């Protein structure tokens, strides 16, 4: 019922697009980081191995180049650089073996030697375990000696893979650092991306919440393509709502008119007839009838008023209202009705104008109902005092009170009285619908104020006050 309902979310959130987006981006980043890491590690391993292979091949080649054929046999003057070059980069163990015609010429004679095919005299690389370590070995085939049958010499050089492992470990740790760094940066960027991707949504939410409650015009903010259907749907919904509200209001106005007019006609007819009648029992019957007509008219009027109030409180128009003038007009309009019971309505208005933002029709309606009650529950020949003043102890609030000299409330539970269709036990024979105070209360609350019901003091009677925030 409150106009501020849209401040607290009525929908429970189910999942979050931002989180989903973020998690998905993060998953992509994680996969990419991992792929990067694996690729770098693989490449590093390959490069390190290729580097070692190159050095091994260079070593074997320099050994092969030192092979000589002297006095019918193969000899070797092992070049210093052949082995020392293997020790330049790292501290790996080095093994070699030179086999001529199936006989070990020199070196480690238990070093396994791949049998390179004579047809493809390319260096053959192999990895195997030797003397407690994993080694990388190259074997090179070189024919030595002149003549038609040169001696086939196989040169093998092997090296442990410590240095290579160290290089790839170093590259791997760099790759890890880069991968982790990449992931961290990607995380930050994902957060930003998720936020900025959803910023149009936030912008549109803001433009909707900023609107006045009665503002049912279509949204005109530029929306990203994905949100256009949603905005269209929202606009369509608002258009339908606008039409429906308009129709309800029209209906109520129409209904009020259609009910009141025939009842007024009926009452006039009854009164004319009443005057013509002479027999007391007939006059009595007709008086009863007029009373019933009055009652029906009032009840119907109040119910329609209430419907109108309910409809309008959801969208209180905040036009500028001169409350003092409104009070004077309403009291003036009410004076004849009060005059029937010889009741005088006294207004006490402040000299300066009292202005507030609100709905004129609703405020009139509220005051009307309170005045109606006051007249109803007051004895003939009494006074009703309508006072407009600043609310004591609350700045920027005004109090519009209606005090009568009627029967008061007998100190009963006053809270009950504003409930719909609830009537007090003090009513006696006075008819009513139990809607008057409900309407006044709803109007007060729709304006951000409240209804204050109290005994009239000093003196007897009731005092009903609308406490409203002033502009």
């Amino acid at each position, binding site marked *: 019922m409150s106009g501020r309902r849209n401040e607290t979310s009525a929908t429970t959130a189910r999942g979050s697009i931002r989180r989903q987006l973020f998690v998905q981006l993060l998953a992509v980043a994680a996969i990419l980081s991992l792929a990067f890491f694996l690729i770098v590690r693989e490449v590093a391993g390959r490069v390190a191995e290729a580097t070692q292979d190159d050095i091994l091949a260079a070593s074997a080649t320099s050994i092969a180049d030192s092979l000589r054929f002297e006095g019918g046999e193969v000899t070797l003057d092992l070049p210093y650089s052949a082995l020392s070059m*293997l020790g330049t980069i790292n501290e790996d163990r*080095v093994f070699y073996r030179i086999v001529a015609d199936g006989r070990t010429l020199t070196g480690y004679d238990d070093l396994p030697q791949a049998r390179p095919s004579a047809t493809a005299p390319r260096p053959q690389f192999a990895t195997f375990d030797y003397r407690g370590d994993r080694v990388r070995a190259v074997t090179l085939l070189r024919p030595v000696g002149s003549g038609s049958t040169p001696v086939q010499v196989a040169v093998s050089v092997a090296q442990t893979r410590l240095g290579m492992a160290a290089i790839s470990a170093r590259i791997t740790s760099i790759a890890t650092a880069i991968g982790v760094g990449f992931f961290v940066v990607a995380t930050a960027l994902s957060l930003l991306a998720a936020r900025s991707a959803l910023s149009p949504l936030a912008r549109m939410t803001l433009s909707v919440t900023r609107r006045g409650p009665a503002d049912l015009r279509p949204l005109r903010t530029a929306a990203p393509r994905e949100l256009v259907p949603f905005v269209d749907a929202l606009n369509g919904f608002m258009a339908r709502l606008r039409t429906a509200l308009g129709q309800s209001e029209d209906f109520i106005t129409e209904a009020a008119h259609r009910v009141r007019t025939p009842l007024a006609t009926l009452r006039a007819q009854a009164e004319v007839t009443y005057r013509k009648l002479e027999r007391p029992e007939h006059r009595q019957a007709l008086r009863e009838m007029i009373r019933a007509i009055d009652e029906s008219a009032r009840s119907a009027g109040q119910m329609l008023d209430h419907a109108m109030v309910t409809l309008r409180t959801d969208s209180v128009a905040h036009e500028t209202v001169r409350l003092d003038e409104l009070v004077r007009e309403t009291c003036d309009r009410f004076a004849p009705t009060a005059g029937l019971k010889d009741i005088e309505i006294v207004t006490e208005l402040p000299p300066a104008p009292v202005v507030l933002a609100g709905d004129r029709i609703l405020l009139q309606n509220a005051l009307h109902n309170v005045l109606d009650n006051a007249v109803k529950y007051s004895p003939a020949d009494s006074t009703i005092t309508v006072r407009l003043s600043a609310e004591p102890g609350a700045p920027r609030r005004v109090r519009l009170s209606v005090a009568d000299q009627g029967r008061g409330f007998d100190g009963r539970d006053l809270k009950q009285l504003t409930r719909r269709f609830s009537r007090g036990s003090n009513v006696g024979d006075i008819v009513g619908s139990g809607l008057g105070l409900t309407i006044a209360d709803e109007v007060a609350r729709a304006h951000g104020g409240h209804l204050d019901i109290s005994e009239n003091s000093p003196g007897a009677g009731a005092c009903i006050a609308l406490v409203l925030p002033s502009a």
Partner: protein
Amino acid sequence: MHRACLAICLNAVLAVACVLAGTGAGAAFEAEARKFYPAPNAPPGAPAQTGAPAAPDAAGRALRIISTADLDAFEPIILGFQAENPDIAVDYTIASTSQLMRAIHDEGAVFDLAISSAMDLQTKLANDGFAQAYRSGATDALPQWARWRNQVFAFTQEPAVLILSESAFAGIAIPRNREELIALLRDNPARFRGRIGTYDVRVSGFGYLMATQDSRNAEAYWRLMEVMGRLEARLYCCSGDMIRDVADGRLALAYNVLGSYASARIAENAPGVRIVQLNDFVNVMLRTVTIPAGARHVDSAHKMVDFLVTLGQRPELAARSGLPPIDDRVLRANNAMRPIRLGPGLLVYLDSQKRRNFLRSWTSSLVQE
């Protein structure tokens, strides 16, 4: 692999009278001497003694060292070590470089430390998988050139020098590099004939190492050998003998003598002997220690390695042993000093073919019958 169970009897401190009774195959390495240092903190027992320890039990727990360094140099170090580690007994066996190699590489004898001046053989031990790795703050503090694979640790740096008899050089300029030395010998054949000494590289591992490094470093090496050969150079097995003969005046000069020994001897009692560090280059031999793969008392071995590589922090102990500790500043102060590089390059001259070729060239240059 068979493990030698040693029982050693010994006649004199430095005598060569050791008999090794192996339980396995007959062949066993020959030790030159063995001395047992009981732990100073041990319950009263035998004092420092030579030969096999009295109680086999004590020997079982002792730190077993096989070393090429004689007791003159090493006893102060052992005692210094025991002063800091009074719970460790030391069983010290002296062997030649080749016997040390044989013991560990071929026979799998059980030692906790192998200390040798043969860098090439120590490198081969590590390369062939007979050494175990060790790292500590002390070993990490060594310069890069003074360790290999965290298995071979250098603890001394000993330059190979020229020593000469001052009287033989009366009136002529003392050579400053190999070129000047060659010129000098060529110009004064009468003065130097038969009075030049150098290592017989066929029998001395250290001599072979120095010769091969020389040949790698300088073209002049072979010309020098040629000249020395023509002047009927005398060949020696050991630095000590050469120094003695220079001091006696029998030699005018000796080439490639271990500088540490030379300075130690000269400091003792050899006036008139002069040490010359040639300024074209000086090979610096590194005495190294390794922990054999089969070491039993690894903790004690680690302590000893740490003690040795930090020898530079105990100058008076280093002075007493006559072993110059590792000191990068000394090398940086003299550009000509070249520490022999540990690593697979050293394996090259251990190659049997290479060795045969080298010795053939060397013999034909120097031994001109």
